């Protein structure tokens, strides 16, 4: 799949933002006043920034408001609704925390739930797509949630929590890669099934339907070299997981070290998220011999 910057930014930032907001909702850390303001600002900034980025991906953003209508079937619609709901639920809680010195814990929990659910719906947008076997596994929501809560914990300055969650995320990420690599073959889609010609023999593209490119090719037939992918996995894993863990464990901590860990993590998240798209092969690429 084409790793479109807007989509990477969208899914990475909203994940982190909602992750942070979720922890805040659970009272972790238990902040109020200016500190709360800063943290909520960060959370909202990330979530809203991400959501804004997603609209850059739209061909016809004028109709974006209609995206709230199809919650019964569409994960994207659910995500839109939940994202707004989460931000709305968290808002009074945050207001209380910042300006009133506190807010009902139940409201915080509800907000946290909404945030996590939002991340889950984001993940389900991808996980529902049978057409992209690498995505269409339960690993996808686990992975997205892992990034959200792990990154959120890091942003929330929770060294211990972050350490546990990042370690968990590390395992999930490695698992997702390993399982993901086999997914396409497991699903069994080949140019033979795609054309129904397998009964005759093995099928190979001789000539594409058009000499140049088209929407399908730019959007869904992105190809990344294997060597390239391995390199990026190492970088992504290092930055998103290994380095933050190292910082958390091997440095004295404190705001600067924490900030460094966050920056590393963010870089890593972008790299792994880029790979999440770039490595995912859409079955339509088969028709183009890719």
């Amino acid at each position, binding site marked *: 799949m084409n790793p479109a910057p807007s989509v990477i930014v969208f899914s990475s930032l909203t994940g982190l933002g909602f992750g942070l907001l979720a922890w805040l909702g659970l009272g972790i850390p238990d902040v109020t006043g200016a500190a709360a303001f800063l943290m909520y600002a960060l959370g909202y900034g990330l979530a809203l920034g991400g959501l804004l980025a997603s609209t850059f991906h739209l061909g016809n953003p004028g109709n974006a408001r*209609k995206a709230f*209508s199809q919650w019964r079937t569409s994960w994207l619609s659910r995500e839109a609704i939940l994202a707004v709901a989460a931000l709305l639920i968290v808002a009074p809680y945050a207001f209380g925390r910042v300006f009133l010195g506190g807010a009902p814990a139940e409201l915080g929990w509800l907000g946290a739930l909404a945030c996590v659910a939002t991340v889950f719906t984001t993940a389900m947008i991808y996980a529902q797509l049978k057409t992209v076997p690498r995505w269409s596994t339960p690993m996808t929501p686990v992975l997205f949630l892992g990034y959200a809560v792990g990154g959120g914990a890091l942003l929330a300055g929770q060294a211990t929590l972050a350490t546990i969650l990042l370690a968990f995320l590390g395992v999930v990420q490695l698992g997702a890669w390993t399982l993901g690599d086999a997914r396409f073959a497991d699903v069994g889609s080949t140019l033979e099934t795609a054309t129904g010609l397998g009964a005759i023999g093995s099928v190979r593209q*001789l*000539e594409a*339907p*058009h*000499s*140049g490119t088209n929407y399908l090719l730019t959007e869904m037939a992105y190809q990344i070299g294997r060597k390239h992918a391995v390199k990026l996995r190492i970088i992504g894993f290092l930055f998103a997981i290994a380095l933050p863990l190292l910082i958390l464990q091997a440095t004295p901590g404190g705001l600067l070290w924490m900030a460094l860990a966050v920056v590393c993590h963010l870089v890593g998240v972008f790299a792994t998220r880029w790979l999440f798209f770039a490595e995912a092969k859409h079955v339509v690429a088969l028709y183009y011999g890719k």
Partner: protein
Amino acid sequence: MADTRIGARPSPKVSDEIRQTTCYMCACRCGINVHMQDGKVKYIEGNRDHPVNKGVLCAKGSAGIMQHYSPARLKAPMKRVGPRGSGEFEDISWDEAYDIAVGWLKPIRETDPKRLAFFTGRDQSQSFTSFWAQAYGTPNYAAHGGFCSVNMAAAGIYTMGGAFWEFGQPDWDRARLVMIFGVAEDHDSNPIKAGIGRLKANGGKVIGVNPIRSGYNAVADEWIGITPGTDGLFILSLIHELLKAGKIDLDYLGRYTNAGFLIRTDDPATADHGMFLRDDAGKPQVVDRATGALAVYDTPGVRPDLAADLQQDGKTYKPALQLLAEAYLDPQYAPEAVANRCGISADRIRAVAAELARVAFEEEITLDQPWTDWKGERHETMIGRPVTFHAMRGISAHSNGFQTCRALHILQILLGSVEVPGGFRFKPPYPKPPEAHPKPNAVGVPGQPLAGPHLGFPMGPEDLQLCEDGTPLRIDKAFTWENPFSVHGLMHMVISNAHAGDPYKIDTLFMYMANMAWNSTMNTSEVMKMLTDTDENGDYVIPHIIYSDAYSSETVAFADLILPDTTYLERHDCISLLDRPICEAEAAADAIRWPVVAPDRDVKGFQSALIDLGARLGLPGFVNEDGSQTYADYADYIVNHQRRPGVGPLAGWRGVDGTDEGRGDANPDQLQRYIDNGGFWSSHIPAEAQYYKPWNKSYQDWAVKIGLFDKAMPYVFNLYLEPMRKLQRAAEGHGSCQPPDHLRARIQATCTPLPAWYEPFEDGIVDRDEYPIHALTQRPMHMYHSWGSQNAWLRQITNVNRLYIPGKVWDEQGFEDGDWAEVTSIHASITVPVARMDALNPDTVWTWNAIGKRRGAWALGDGAPEAERGFLLNHLIHELQPPKGDGRRWANSDPITGQAAWFDLRVKIRRLPPEQVSQPAHEAQVSPVGTGPENVSYGEGF
């Protein structure tokens, strides 16, 4: 939300009006419904009532809108201001354009009319352009047939009085087996596709013979991936097998062919060796099987004895069929003997022969349709042999093409499957034997029209067009000993001969609708140089070039004067029975084009421009006695011109009241009647005249009535082609018209009266180990030569062509996806992108034809892939064969017809890494029309 959805059964308005005319995105000439809205063309679909396409429309036809609104359309007459080839022009008025043309053409007409060479491309008004050229008086006129498919046309007409191509077709609805040789697309585009579809729906089968398994060969039930240039051998081997099995239609051969004609065989040294035994009136004779006596072949009641010899006056005569059997039963044609050369196993050859025989004789069909033959004999039924053949340039564009095509026709005839139900059927005005065609004329007299038409069918050395000293009369050397039966001329030789001044220099080269500086020429890079070459005075070696095109093609850049044509939706045209009509096997038909939209530029239909020019030159037929212009424009000519009394360009609605067909006075309302009828006219052949047309009395009478010919002319098919023997005989030293010595051996070897296979010339000349690979082109079904690339929709489908390389060569050389290659012929090298293909003859590479473009042409922008990565194979193909050491270079053409031997090409290949630019990379030409817009969203207006 539901309210914004379209209704459950939406019924939007389709258009304001439908205008019915004829497509021109290729020469198939389908009927189209042009939907107009707000005065603009909205949608084009096929006309369901039209005899050619019956409603369907191909990709090109469907993209007609984009062609009509192409940014590459020329806008006004132009005169060259930069050097030739640069593309720098200045717009001028039509008056100025005519003045310039008259300034060049008038003086040479009065002194030496042959100094005008007027050659036209694949236009559909050859009867008109040749009429003009005849009136002008130059012998140098032809259309493009010489480089196209003259072998097919000539072999068909000489052998059976009509050709495949667009002059005949398989009986698609009754055939059970269709064997297709060397066809990628053909002129009969939609009818062939429709035919294959119907055949398959009926459970019939297709055998495709082609080195490449694409298109029709992809859907063929059986694919014979033959080695290029060897079809003749394969066909003769099939004949060998059929003869051995006695699977030939003796009744048919005796009645409808010259199988029984007696041929002298006893003394090879005599002048009449190999000639027919004729009576005093010159009519060939046969032995009557019933009486054993000699008889003229067409005497009623006589059935020739195909098995008898005749000894008479110490001479021996044998029936043609016996000579044929002797020739082809020779072990050299046994399947084992030809298998390797053809790349087809002997078993497979035998299996094909058996299948042909099985379908022809065991699936015989009988129609309960009585008919009467030319001798008056009544037949209660029509016997059909449902096996039929089609072939095109794959067998014709080789230097052995004429004889290969003849061999194929002989195979059809031996099976008794020509003009019978389920077999091959002619389309009016065919059948028409060679004798019924005119003879060539090439003696130009200053200030006078030519004595007769330029092109015709020679019947022996006496009809060649040579000066007293034996030098050619025509610039293309047509009808000379080099290509005695070059019935379509040799357009591919005009530029190089004119440049070389061989046989003479010319003054003005006038071309119409042929991209001769690019894809229709051989040796493109050199031809571009010839067109721009100057003599010692700095003058162009070819002094003047006039060209008519509708678009900014490569050739435009090489002309001095441009006459801009309209697009096909903006002009009158006629698709005439005098020319290449739209007939079907069951009906005579012709059609028109008419301006369904008015041109928005200063352009003019070329034929109308030619009429204006003819009048300004005072050509007979174009001016009245008082010197005024005879025809206002082409529409006026179409309606009022009469070729023979009562016979004009259009056959429908003749007579002042429009009630006559075929023959009748001019009808001032004729074009409107055509428009009212959907743009065409058709008249059904009576049921009893539908088959056996060459020998069918009622067909012959109908053809006379409709004006196809003036008297009935039944004839028999030529298994044995005596005119060929006449050429051979001259080469042996008999007669007064003698070939030059250096051609004698070649004429003897190639002009055989029974087709023989000889290897393509290039095969014999190059070192086959060094150049081991055959290189071919194919037409893409969705592109018409070079025109398609200016079409915003079509060019997306193909804007880069790759050279397809067979798996064997691919692996040997270690090619990988994305690689390029250097391809070298004995003559030149090109650099091209490549791709692998396995469904391909292992010694053959190929590419799509005419995708490569010159930079700056066709209003395409910088970096257009057609110019960067597209390529032409033409650079590798020389118009002359490589030198042989005797200092002479023969044309790279069939030695009989002059057909350009495009497909004889042999190459070698070397792998190159990815990311190249195609070579040769010619410098850009300036576009006189700018480049196209960035984006297109055509439907916006509606």
